[in-house]
């Protein structure tokens, strides 16, 4: 499946499944060790805060809440911890990406994501 390519970056559509549901567009960020969702969105779908973490970036550090909820990417629903971000950007980090095979062809501006497990299952049918 091809991911959306805009502003020289890849984006995936992600479903947040809490007490309520919401769909968001999230930046694929292989540098992030954990996915991040705006705090406002986490609250809106009813994700619960479970802890706090000091997050270090190259341009500073800050304390941010960690929410627990279910996130669906490529039809795979994962219960996971996500960091609550202060801005309105969402990112998909390695915690979710590690379930998939990601192929990057920046020259052709094409990013493919697939679930190797699902492909194996389909081949064996």
């Amino acid at each position: 499946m091809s991911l959306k390519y805009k502003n020289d970056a890849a984006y995936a559509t992600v479903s947040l499944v809490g007490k309520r549901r919401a769909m968001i567009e999230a930046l694929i960020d292989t540098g992030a060790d954990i996915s991040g969702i705006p705090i406002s969105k986490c609250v809106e779908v009813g994700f619960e805060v479970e802890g706090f973490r000091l997050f270090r970036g190259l341009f500073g550090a800050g304390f941010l809440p960690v929410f627990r909820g279910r996130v669906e990417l490529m039809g795979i629903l994962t219960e996971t911890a996500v960091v609550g971000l202060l801005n309105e950007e969402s990112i998909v980090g390695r915690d979710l990406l590690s379930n998939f095979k990601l192929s990057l062809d920046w020259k052709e501006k094409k990013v493919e994501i697939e679930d190797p497990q699902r492909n194996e299952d389909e081949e064996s049918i």
Partner: protein
Amino acid sequence: MGRIQATIPDELEEALRKAMAKRYGWRKGVLRDVVTLALNDWLSSVEAVNTLEKVLTELEDKGVVDKNFAKEVLRQKEIFERERETLEAKYKGLVVVACGGEFFAGETFKEAVEAARKKFKDLPYYSESIKRIDHPSVRVRG
């Protein structure tokens, strides 16, 4: 320069003098440098707890977290700060979660959190990675 006089336990003084001599030798001004370093470290840890308290209060006002949650996170942060030196030496490059007064380390945040949740199901935690960047591309408000 200010002048501070304090009384400390004999054992602590003995350990301090031995460690100073071993590390810096017997030169003038070592005690002043070591005390300044220790006080600066302590002030930084207090500052960090104060900053966290401020963020928690903001989220409490918005109804995102409640008072008990905030109190427990601050308690874990203080425990983390008390053990910071040991944690930084032992878990360099790993993610550490402080929960229920204990520490859980992992290669990833997920690993460390899962270990904490296995022992203390829903207890709020405080976490930091030790000397590594978590979100290189994201500007995090300091």
